[in-house]
């Protein structure tokens, strides 16, 4: 009769409890360190209730009273749009410079890759703060920030997409001459175009959300209006603006979804 080795459930239970206890202790220590009481949200819920009370009945008249609200929506959209387009174009160009199969000169590839990585890692906050100083607060600074962040997010991605294309000719092509290089460009471009468009539409989506956030730091647009309303405690205006933001974001999402489907046919985002 051979015995079979199994872990007894009681041992497994002990193991599970240990892991759970240790995790709970780590989390609790972290909470204490940060002075955070998770239950505080519920214990001090009256704050939330008071706030909700002040916020409720959104004041849509603020749209009529303050004509700049409507304009600021346009500003946010433009910011996101331009940031995506300009950023996208530059990202594509840099991607070509960084991709293995389109840039034969290693030094250029390496330098571009490093640049793209740096741009990716630099936090949005720093970028907006810098541009606010460099070109003054407002929509322009916000737009430039979005250009940079778009390049950062998508530059590397586009480079990978380019590298993943099916490319029959080998490196021999490069020795043949410039016009052939252009032929490669136009064999790669049709292949990457669907992915490119899908990602740009997605970028637009993300950039709208970011643009709203940037408004708070001086980027202009509806985020800025939100911050303004909040600082003068016009909470009913705040609610109205938030609802507009939600509608805006959802519409943008539906739009980008619709466009993606129209241009590319049904299928998931690659």
């Amino acid at each position, binding site marked *: 009769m051979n015995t*079979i*080795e*199994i*872990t*007894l*459930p*009681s041992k*497994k*239970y002990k193991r*599970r409890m240990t892991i759970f206890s240790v995790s709970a202790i780590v989390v609790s220590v972290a909470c204490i360190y940060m002075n955070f009481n998770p239950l505080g949200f519920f214990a001090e819920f009256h704050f939330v209730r008071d706030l909700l009370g002040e916020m409720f009945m959104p004041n849509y008249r603020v749209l009529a009273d303050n004509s700049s609200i409507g304009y600021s929506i346009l500003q946010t959209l433009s910011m996101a749009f331009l940031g995506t387009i300009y950023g996208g174009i530059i990202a594509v160009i840099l991607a070509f410079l960084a991709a293995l199969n389109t840039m034969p000169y290693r030094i250029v590839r390496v330098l571009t890759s490093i640049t793209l990585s740096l741009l990716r890692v630099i936090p949005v906050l720093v970028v907006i703060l810098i541009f606010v100083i460099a070109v003054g607060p407002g929509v322009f600074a916000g737009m430039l920030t979005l250009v940079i962040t778009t390049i950062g997010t998508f530059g590397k991605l586009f480079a990978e997409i380019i590298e993943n294309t099916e490319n029959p000719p080998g490196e021999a092509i490069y020795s043949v001459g410039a016009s052939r290089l252009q032929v490669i460009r136009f064999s790669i471009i049709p292949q990457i175009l669907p992915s490119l468009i899908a990602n740009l539409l997605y970028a637009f989506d993300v950039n709208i959300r970011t643009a709203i956030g940037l408004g708070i730091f001086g980027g202009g647009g509806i985020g800025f209006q939100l911050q303004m309303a909040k600082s003068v405690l016009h909470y009913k205006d705040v609610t109205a603006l938030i609802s507009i933001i939600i509608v805006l974001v959802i519409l943008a999402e539906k739009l980008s979804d619709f466009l993606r489907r129209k241009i590319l046919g049904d299928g998931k985002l690659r």
Partner: protein
Amino acid sequence: MIEVKNLTKSLPNGRMLLDGISFKVRKGEFVGILGPSGAGKTLTLRCLNGLLKPDTGEVIIHDENGNGRDICKINKRELRRVRQRIGVIFQGYHLVKRLSALENVMIGRLGQISTARSLFYGFTDGEAAEALLALEKVKIGHLAEIKTGNLSGGEMQRVAIARAIFQLPTLLIADEPISNLDPSNAKVIMKMIKPLSATMPVVGVFHQPDMTAKYCTRVIAIKDGKVIYDGDPKLSNDMLVEIYGEELSLIEQQEHAVPAMLIN
């Protein structure tokens, strides 16, 4: 014993999926249900444990004292209690792949354990020992700690059988348990299911008349929602044609040969 009386189920457009299905299965019987695809076999089986509620009819399950309950009429909590004692084997990979074979067997008694204890503590060592015994009965005790997803199809079905054994059931139902298995594994599984019928009624849906001929004590054929045959598992060629509508011939399988069905 399980008693099925006059089951009917129809689609909204009027088509009858089940049209008066009635039969009885007693302890000691291993019944195989055959029939062409879409005939209503699986629907009938699902009525047997309440996964499907028929439009009319009764499904009466008798426990060991002989008291019968019509499971079509009981509430969810009672149904759960009845299901504790019904073992099920489905087709394909129906166990939890990321849990070990042993854990999957122990899941069989989840209905019999209090919810609180099962969720916060899990299973007891005693239950684990019994589950191991069940796995050894189906000859895969050595695979107890292996994640079920890593087992072969035949091994997984054996875990399913072990799970059923572990439940100490009063009824065993199987939905095409061997359809996904190669012939030698199918034989092994049938050989393991058959002895279980000594202590409880066993009802299974099959697509393999040669297997039911060899291992079942009785065969029921369902076509177009009706029972058209109920009797000897060794079906004649004419009967096969009537059931499946094709020229089929059954070759009696020898001990080590692979069973074959020829289509003329």
